[in-house]
């Protein structure tokens, strides 16, 4: 096999030179599918991130019975803190609520209390943060049964819809990646088939004079690898530069949107595109050849 390496590389190069348009088509197919794949991955990462950041802002507001003393409120607070799925509980006492309200409308505490009939109208409020947004609903329902609380708010419909929406975003993201990944593999294997077909006479003679299947495969394999690598490199450049540009643009115009800027993910995706291109080319070549080499 070492004696033949010269032949194999010469053939690979010759083939690309003989069929420049076919090679170009292969490279472009790999590139386009991998660009889409790359953006899909970033899209997926961003939707996941967006869903997570919306979800993490979800919290439960629980209002304590007016009759509770400050000690009882503290007991209730620590009791809720012990519940499974609770990350933290913060307390806004009725006095604080009154003070905040006074600040916003510009009156003094005593004047407000007098205005509303002599007693502080605000309840003590516990703000509950949950460890997993998926648990907001069940936790809120169990809080509702607590006798110390007379009202529990968690924006039930908003939570349900947001969770549904983020779930959908995830599925759509996965679907886009899967569909384009499959399309890329099919397109590449078609390209390689055309390539093999255009050299069927050569393959026929190689088989006739006793070249081993492994030997016949090598130039196609290397050609597939090379074309895939070129396509993957172009895709990595386009995806990398394009994503940076989009990130900068989004951050300067739509500042409220959280954009993933994970250098590790970035490197993994670009390197992954290179490897995926090579793998696609090589696997496509081998699969397409398999049928020709039998019989």
């Amino acid at each position, binding site marked *: 096999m070492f004696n*033949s390496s010269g032949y194999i590389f010469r053939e690979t190069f010759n083939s690309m030179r003989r069929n420049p348009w076919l090679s170009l088509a292969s490279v472009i197919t790999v590139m386009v599918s991998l660009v889409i794949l790359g953006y899909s991955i970033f899209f997926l990462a961003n939707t996941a991130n967006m869903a997570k950041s919306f979800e993490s802002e979800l919290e439960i507001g629980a209002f304590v019975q007016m009759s509770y003393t400050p000690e009882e409120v503290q007991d209730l607070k620590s009791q809720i803190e012990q519940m499974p799925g609770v990350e933290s509980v913060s307390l806004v006492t009725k006095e604080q609520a009154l003070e905040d309200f006074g600040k916003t409308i510009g009156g003094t505490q005593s004047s407000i209390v007098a205005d509303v009939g002599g007693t502080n109208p605000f309840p003590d409020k516990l703000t509950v943060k949950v460890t997993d947004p998926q648990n907001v609903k069940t936790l809120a329902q169990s809080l509702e049964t607590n006798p110390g609380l007379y009202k529990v708010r968690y924006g039930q419909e908003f939570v349900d819809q947001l969770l549904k929406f983020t779930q959908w975003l995830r599925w759509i993201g996965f679907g886009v990646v899967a569909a384009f990944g499959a399309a890329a593999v099919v397109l590449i294997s078609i390209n390689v088939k055309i390539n093999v077909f255009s050299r069927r006479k050569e393959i026929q003679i*190689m088989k006739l004079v*006793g070249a*081993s299947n492994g030997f016949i495969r090598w130039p196609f394999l290397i050609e597939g690898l090379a074309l895939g690598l070129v396509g993957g490199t172009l895709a990595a450049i386009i995806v990398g530069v394009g994503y940076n540009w989009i990130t900068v643009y989004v951050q300067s115009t739509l500042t409220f949107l959280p954009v993933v800027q994970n250098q590790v993910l970035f490197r993994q995706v670009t390197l992954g595109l290179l490897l995926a291109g090579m793998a696609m080319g090589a696997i496509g070549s081998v699969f397409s050849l398999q049928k020709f080499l039998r019989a």
Partner: protein
Amino acid sequence: MIQLTNVSKIYSNGARALVDVNLKIGKGNFVFLVGPSGAGKSTLIKLLYREEIPTRGQVQINSRNLVRMKEREVPYLRRSIGVIFQDFKLLPNKTVFENVAFALEVIGVPKREVRSRTLATIDLVGLKAKEKAYPHELSGGEQQRVCVARAIINNPALLVADEPTGNLDPDTAWDIMDLLYEINKRGTTVVMATHARAIVNKMQKRVIAIENGRVARDEEQGGYGYDV
């Protein structure tokens, strides 16, 4: 050297190409396969270099069983068999030298050896002056010589030819036959399917006639036998 035992070949479309054929061809023989088109000559040739496998029966070459042979052993069988075609099957974008050298390169022969053996074989078939020419620059006879050179460069024990003179004018055909005769004299067994009556009658070699997939006649020093 070649032994066919109760060989039948039925193609997947139901065509019965060969029916219960028994044949023995000895080492160094020169054998003509004759018979009408579609009688099964080409199928028999293809069985010899294992392009096809018989539906029933056994094919043996040098005591190697071609039916039981594993797929990965086939390349090594082919290295001991040269094949010549009516349509030459040369690679159009390679020169004469490259076409012949191809047969050595693809089985991993070292480069220096490729060069010397290729030049010697091209010389043997009388194409020394055309070494750098491309197939389209050659006459039919010259192209067939390239095909012969490619077939014999590995010193095969067996040379099979499927109508090698079918595309050539009579004079050129005789040049090719002289070449095959020379190769046979050097010890290579030659099996040739042909319609060339004059050649078969003149050469006085063994003639096997195939009709409707069966051996209809098998004569030492026979003639073509089909009257116009």
